[in-house]
């Protein structure tokens, strides 16, 4: 891990305002930001661990827990809201047994993110599994679609 991290961080040495781009790059490579990685980043940037965590936890993009094998994103944007996006989210939570507000199944097979708009408002309500966009969702389609991923 330390060598991999050093390789990721190297290009940012001496750059002004690099904290956010560094965190983005590290998360892209490692998948999330575990505590020991935040310590390393803080060392590299000459900041305290708290300062780095303070920045990271401010932004919605950063995860501090291992992501699931499949990531489900339920759009809670305005257009999806009007078209019943909340019911889609509730269906996913129910199907995967993820309590409201939680983000991962116990077996780490599925991660759940509540996001605010993919800009695909004409297809609302929208659900995204990994990189596939499913538009015009209904609670019964949630069951069908998740079944495909559960079987795999």
């Amino acid at each position, binding site marked *: 891990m330390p060598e991999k991290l050093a390789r990721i961080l190297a290009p940012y040495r001496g750059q*002004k*305002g*690099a*904290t*956010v*781009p560094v*965190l*983005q790059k590290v998360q892209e490579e490692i998948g999330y930001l575990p505590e020991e990685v935040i310590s390393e980043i803080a060392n590299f940037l000459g900041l305290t661990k708290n300062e780095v965590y*303070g*920045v990271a936890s*401010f*932004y*919605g*993009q*950063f995860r501090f827990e291992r992501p699931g094998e499949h990531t489900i994103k339920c759009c*809670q*944007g*305005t*257009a999806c*809201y*009007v*078209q*019943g996006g909340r*019911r889609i989210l*509730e*269906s996913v939570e*129910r*199907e995967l047994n993820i309590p409201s507000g939680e983000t991962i199944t116990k077996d780490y097979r599925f991660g759940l993110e509540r*996001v*605010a*708009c*993919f*800009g*695909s*408002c*004409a*297809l*609302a309500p*929208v659900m995204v599994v990994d990189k596939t*966009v499913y*538009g015009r969702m*209904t*609670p*019964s389609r949630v*069951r069908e679609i998740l079944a495909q991923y559960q079987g795999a």
Partner: protein
Amino acid sequence: MAFDEIRKQAIAEWEALQHSDKPRILVGTATCGRAAGALAVLETIERELSRLGIEATVTQVGCIGLCYAEPIVDIIKPNRPRICYSSVTPEIISRLIEDYLVNDNPRSDLALGFIGEGSVDGIPKLFELPMLKPQVRISLRNCGHIDPTDIKQYIANDGYSGFIKALKMTPEEVIAEVKKSGVRGRGGAGFPTGQKWEFCRRSPGKEKYLICNADEGDPGAFMNRSQLESDPHAVLEGILIGAYAIGTTKGYIYCRAEYPLAVERLNIALEQMREYGLLGENILGSGFSFDIEIKEGAGAFVCGEETALMASIEGKRGMPRSRPPFPAVSGLWGKPTNINNVGTWADVAAVLQKGGEWYSHFGSETSKGTKTFSLAGKVARTGLIEVPMGIKLGDIIYEVGGGIVGGKKFKAVLTGGPSGGCLPASMLELSVDYENLTKAGSIMGSGGMLVADEDTCMVDMARFFLSFTQAESCGKCVPCRVGTRQMLDSLERITQGGGQPGDIERLEQLAHLVLSTSLCALGGTAPNPVLTTIRYFRDEYEAHIYQKRCPALVCSKLISYYILPDKCEGCGICLRACPVEAITGGKRMVHVIDQDKCTKCGTCLSVCPERFSAVVKVSGEKLDVPSEPIPVVSSRAKRKSESSDKP
């Protein structure tokens, strides 16, 4: 190469493409096109062309703004008008290639419209269609027409001519031209752009910064995304003009991380600008140097606020600070900074290309030019639109948007997203400009426009928006941090049936407090949806509070689903579809919903065959239905008893 040479070459190539003897196919592959399946269509096109041995030029273009009709494919045969086909699937495009390219049947039944000279039997002119006719395209002038990854196509369509013109003027003259146009900030606040530039130009100091705000955080708004994906150079040209006028050497584009395709296309565009000498040291030999860096946002709505955005670029928590000092005096890294929205930059390029006077002919008295909106929600034709300022709200919804979907009744339109307000039917005559929207209690905002029909609960809508702003409140100032939380708690209670007399008045009082004392515009506008829904839809609040009833049948704690025993035929469809097994019944038995188990997801109502329509949704009442399944009364018997009931 001098720019004149580049331009000549670009025009020659563009003309050659227009008069090519090979057919051309344009596929809209912006994000919404892709979500609707445009990439599968593109693959099919490539495969079918090579299978049939047809030589054609296939180009990926951006978004023409007809989201409801995506994926969109245009086919241009030599010496024929361009025909636009909507809702294209791989099957349809295979058929089109065979029918039109091979057999010369343009398939008017599948076409939406045509563009260009001449006519095609049975196909209307695209820009004469009701959704496009009221539109005026300035910002979106090239979207859907050119390849956004090819700078030459932009140059061939007057691209960068505005910047060339600016270089021949003094910076003060450029600012005067922008002032003459009357263009105002398209990010929502509507500050006059020329004046803003002047402040920054006059600020002392050599080191200055320029920022393009592309942090489109308003859920339901996608104007900036579409603009950047479809015509990034229009924005970049505007930025160059601004940089020259203000006197800066470094600019940033702060773009939402959720827009990977926009970032990708911006990077391509920047690379091409460098290649053609439009970016970097001594641009086009003018002595003016300027460079642009892209900064990706990390998912914080408050970063759309200018001081928060700058803190974020500096690598800090994106929290706003009090003004003054204004960014024009002390902004990024403490230096004078000018920040404008994507839409403003794209408009500025057009202003310099065609003149401030030309631009000022569009729009209303106080709000010049056009405005892009993302029209979404319950309208028949959702899309990205650009209309002249001053257009009637009702014209946007009924002409451009085609009215409410499914024959339902219009209830409200929300402008300005979570910072805006909900305007009722009585406001449909309102002419849309900055002043009028503010007077009505809403704001122009960045351009989100969401239409709600009779099935939308306005109390729940206010709750929804507040839950968003509350979660996105950065927590720095007390009125916003605590006030939005308090308001949200009240709204949650009201929508769950716990409303008490006095709640409305308390909400109003709190809203005014948050509005007038918050540090930045997030808190300063967050109460707008609450205040406008109370102002225009007070009766809905009262129904929730005093009768524990949700008139729009939305709030799940206040509604119930029932199966009517005289209509149920015991078919079992709802029983099998119910995701929580709350329905009991059997063959030819009237089904019954266990109210304790029911999660109010509405699946039973949506699957019950229309000929039975046995499932109903009610609020504020309890229906007298059997608690256990009972045998179905046969439909013949039912009809018989009905006819014998008649006198």
